[in-house]
């Protein structure tokens, strides 16, 4: 019984040593990978800062003003004027919808001798779109 116990514990030590060895290298690999990712983050952050700086540089008011002047015939951009700000009263109410005629329009009518002349008006079969 005893030798079996010895062999088993020896095997267990062997297995644990192998496991620890592998874990050690796996950890080192992960650390290296993380360092690489962090380096990448740092360089990307530098790039973002550079892109932001470039964005600000390309959008500097002097350049935009020059671009607006160069492309005036296409864009017609001018500095904003006080007159461009209006009040709600300046905005016209929407026009009433136009009369849409879909059916035939009978312009002829029979004039009755009867006194109710209202019926004499030309009748339209067109309908108004609501």
């Amino acid at each position: 019984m005893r030798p079996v116990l010895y062999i088993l514990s020896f095997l267990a030590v062997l297995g644990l040593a192998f496991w620890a060895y592998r874990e050690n290298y796996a950890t080192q690999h992960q650390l290296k990978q993380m360092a690489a990712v962090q380096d990448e983050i740092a360089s990307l952050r530098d790039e973002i800062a550079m892109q932001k700086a470039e964005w600000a540089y390309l959008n500097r008011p002097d350049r935009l003003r020059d671009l607006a002047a160069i492309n005036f015939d296409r864009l017609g951009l001018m500095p904003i004027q006080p007159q461009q700000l209006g009040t709600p009263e300046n905005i016209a109410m929407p026009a009433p919808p136009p009369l849409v005629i879909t059916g035939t329009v009978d312009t002829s009518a029979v004039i009755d001798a009867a006194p109710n002349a209202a019926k004499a008006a030309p009748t339209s079969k067109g309908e108004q779109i609501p």
Partner: protein
Amino acid sequence: MIRTPLRPLARILDARAKGENPDAIERENVAIRNDAMRDKSRARAERRLMILAFGFFIAFSVIGARMGTLAASTPTEPRTAAGGSDITAQRADILDRNGRILATNMLTHSLYAQPRDMVDPVHAATELAAIFPELDAKSLERRFTDGRSFLWVRKVLSPEQMQKVHEIGDPGLYFGPREMRLYPNGDLAAHVLGGAAFGAEGVDSAEVIGTAGIEKQLDARLRDPAQSSNPLTLSIDLTLQANVEEVLATGVKTLQARGAAAILMDAHSGEVLAMASLPTFDPNDRGALDPQVDPSDNPLFNRAVQGVYELGSTFKIFAVAQAMDLGLVTPETQVDTKQPFYYDGFRINEFDGHNYGPTKSVADIIAVSSNIGAAHIGLMIGPERQQAFLKTMGLLDPPQIELFEAASARALVPKNWSNIVTITASYGHGISTSMLNLAAGYATLANGGLKVTPTLLHAASHPQGPRIVSQATSYACIQMMRRVVTDGTATFADVPGYEVAGKTGTAEKPKKHGVGYDHDKVINTFASVFPASDPKYVLVVTMDEPVETAGLKPRRTAGYTAVPVAGEIIRRVGPLLGLRPKMDGAALGGMVAVKDPVAQE
């Protein structure tokens, strides 16, 4: 275990036979057993002590070794920590109030040489001189070969230059990474930002320190590692700043002025929305002060803050505001404006020899800008009260703002505040102060009478200042200043819809070398508040030696120089500030489609 008997029968019998005491045998055996037990336990104790000592030895060796490695190794960042999101730039960015970048950092490289590693110093020197025109091949070659082990070649390289240096291929040339300060908007808001330079320089990095403006004043905040990822937000609005600078530059050009400055300020919070000073400079390439040039003409000089000028008649409103607040006058009170007016042998003149008759109302004195009227109001107040009032308005102190230059802009005030000083101070002569103080003073009068402290930092709310004048006085002052624009000296600033109120000021410059004033050299100022019905913004425009030559004779009064420029600025910035112009029906009828101006013509 086999025990040795204490009284072995054989020996006992043997001893009895010989007539010896058998107890001696027992005692001897007991003694032997005790000795054996003692030796055994001692050996065990020694072994235990050895094991314990070995354990302690190992433990102390481990601690010692760890301490040794910690002391001997170079420190490194703990890489196992989660991605450090706050390890970014070493100097915080500066943004405008809308988050647009005013100053940021850029990674660049410096170039240094270690001549001992150089293969061909002569070739390297010639090639470097070809890439960088400011370097001299001969002196570079001498410095490469005179035995020194290290030298800086250039502080900053562009990527193209770096590539060219790479192509020289000399192993003795090294690149050191470093961050540099970048102002992407060029000379815009240059005087606010100031500039930055390299401080302590190392091979791996260089310290960036502020050299002027807000960069220097708030250097500690910008360099604080805890706040480096937290940008500094200024109250400046980039769009407004660009518009103000553009209009001001046009004004300087057409009026042939030596310089100009403008400040646009929120009348309630004191936040400076735009601050311009011309001529200007590029903070990316900040030159040095040229000793040959008059310091006040140097582009680095901030006229809006550093310059102390006699601000002329713009001061009259302060005398009137104080007199009204003290209950001495109302806008309708008639004040003596009779000519000639002598005091202590000094003759007080009206501008350009005008004569405004025997008396004028206070409102008229402001509208026509009568010096004699203002002088009489000043005399009603008296020297002590006037000095105290101007002091509480902050007009006699260096301007309060987050700019390094502000502290040096001390107001020039006569030591002895006599009656004659009171008279001249009521119309803004004999006292020189910063334009920023004037803007803050007008903001105080405009916002209902609460003291305004100018600031360049944007915040959700600012502490309310103490009350300086009453609400009624503030209202009356704005109404009087509105009259200056509608039918006084500043009609060119009457921008339709924006109800501009303001006061002009023209001060002759003191002669350079001597006493007296130069009549052809003036400082024109226009301090304005808009819109008059609900004052929100203060704009102060100052022009140095402008002249308007469209008429028959050159005109140098503020009404023809600073006022039209200020009017144009208000017309441009009003819509950008989101102010809706107050138009009556007729003005609205004249509304034009600005989007297609070609079609109109």
